[in-house]
């Protein structure tokens, strides 16, 4: 009997497929969307604070700008920030996790305590502080989120590495004189790609939550549209009483983004470890 491939098993995981389709739609909206939808600036020509209509699909904001366009450009910002945060977290977390899991010893213990200390730091207040000091921009927000997301990734890489390095094929590689670097970054990394991928989807989700929180607190980049920023403008002016769409649509976007990425992560995880499924 042939073993089922990952994709075949994954396609049976209903929630995972929903997450995958949702993530694909979000990516489509955020990456391709901005080419078709104009960037909103200045004052709009439409009625300010008008509800959803045929012309303005999701209504307009206080300046008469089209909310649908703002949401699409907001998706672009969310993807940009969460993907950059993931890259930053991977760049720090994967090497540190591999080294601490594979070489153990003093260096391993040192990295281990670095992971634990970083994990105990309450991140949001610190991020607020840093964003306020450095000044709000997409790049700052992305780097700050990534710098605080690496410990979870490093810990997952470390734990998976501990398990994989017990395997006989790692010993075989050692005997064959394969270098430590190749053992870690090829032999081990290829075998822990699953859990890493799962954690990346979770970081994508939390990164958007953090980005929205920062924007909602007024620490987002003022030059781009972001879902948290739209909420912040609406609440600051008290428009949430009059224009429900200014609250519901951006909030729903944040929620769907988080849910879809989490579902994708759950799908991948449960396909890789069928036992974790109840």
């Amino acid at each position, binding site marked *: 009997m042939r073993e089922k491939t990952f994709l075949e098993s994954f396609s049976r995981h209903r929630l995972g497929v929903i997450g995958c389709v949702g993530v694909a739609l979000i990516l489509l909206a955020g990456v391709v969307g901005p080419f078709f939808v104009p960037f909103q600036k200045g004052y709009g020509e439409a009625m300010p604070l008008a509800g959803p209509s045929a012309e303005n699909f999701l209504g307009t904001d206080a300046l008469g700008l089209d909310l649908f366009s703002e949401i699409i450009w907001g998706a672009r910002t969310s993807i940009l920030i969460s993907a950059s945060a993931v890259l930053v977290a991977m760049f720090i977390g994967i090497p540190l996790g591999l080294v601490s899991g594979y070489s153990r010893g003093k260096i391993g213990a040192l990295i281990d305590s670095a992971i634990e200390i970083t994990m105990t730091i309450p991140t949001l207040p610190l991020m607020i502080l840093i964003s306020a000091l450095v000044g709000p921009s997409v790049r700052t927000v992305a780097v700050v989120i990534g710098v605080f997301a690496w410990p979870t990734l490093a810990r997952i890489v470390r734990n998976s590495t501990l398990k994989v390095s017990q395997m*006989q094929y790692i*010993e*075989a590689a050692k*005997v*064959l*004189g394969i270098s430590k670097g190749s053992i870690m970054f090829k032999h081990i990394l290829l*075998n822990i790609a699953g859990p890493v991928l799962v954690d990346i989807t979770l970081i994508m989700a939390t990164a958007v939550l953090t980005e929205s929180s920062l924007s909602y607190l007024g620490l987002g980049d003022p030059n781009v549209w972001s879902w948290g920023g739209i909420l912040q403008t609406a609440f600051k002016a008290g428009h949430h009483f009059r224009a429900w769409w200014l609250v519901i649509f951006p909030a729903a976007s944040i929620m769907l983004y988080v849910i879809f990425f989490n579902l994708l992560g759950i799908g991948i995880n449960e396909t890789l470890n069928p036992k974790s499924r109840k």
Partner: protein
Amino acid sequence: MNMDSMLQVRNLKKYFPIKGSLFGAGPSYVHALENVDLDLYKGETLGVVGESGSGKSTLGRTIIQLEQPTAGKVLFEGKDVSALKGEELKRFRTNIQMVFQDPYASLNPRLSVGYAIAEPMIAHKRFASKAETKEATEELMKKVGLQPSMASQYPHNFSGGQRQRIGIARALSLNPKVLICDEAVSALDVSVQSQILNLFNALKRELGLTYIFIAHDLSVVRYISDRILVLYLGTVMEIAPKSRLFEKHYHPYTESLISASPEPSTAKRKGRIILSGEIPSPINPPKGCKFHTRCFKCMERCKVEEPGLREIETGHFVRCHLYDEKGRN
């Protein structure tokens, strides 16, 4: 047989520390190997037998530097290799290679078979070009009875026997002089076992290899070895050329091992010696002779004094008080 000793093990000891409990009296150790001495001659197959827990795998792993010896030396071609590091260790790796027990666990599931065989050659820069490496890989696959066209496939497409062939090809990729086979056939079906054993014999003839063949199965060791070393609780009990060991074994432990191996004919089945009890814990090995707790010929003296390894006949060594005087009991 050529009597050049290419590998010498002298007084090899390996203790694994166990973490003492909070109220325990200091750290304790698993005594995996106790003063093992052996010589490996060029071109021979040395079989190592023993029960599980006898230290036979540790012996192989210590020789190949997967474990650091607690004391003693491993000399390869006259050079102590037990403290090698870095580049020197890497160079030493080309001399001695290992075939592992579990053909499923010893291949990385995410690397293609061709890459698994080629990787050591790339790491050691054996060839200048990719084409040469590829050619050598195909050559190795042919040598172990695999089709070179399967190089791009992944281990899960192969059966246990085929995987073991891949493991052998990988070990041979560095052109080693010595191959340590750690239970290399015990995970395989009996029919496949004989194919792999024949492959080992053919490769030995073709490449002039020397083997250390570790196994718990006496019939396998009997088939493939020239000399046999019997290990019990990390101690060498008897070493002898195969033909002589099966004909005339001196040590009571060897006697019980051989009598316990299954015989196809009922006529030969009588006189089986059943040992009482389990192999004692290597954390707290018995004083005196290691085997005295289970020996059916145990004397008072065996409980207090450990016998030395004595040459009874040329090339036949025994560690037993029964043979302390030149004659026999």
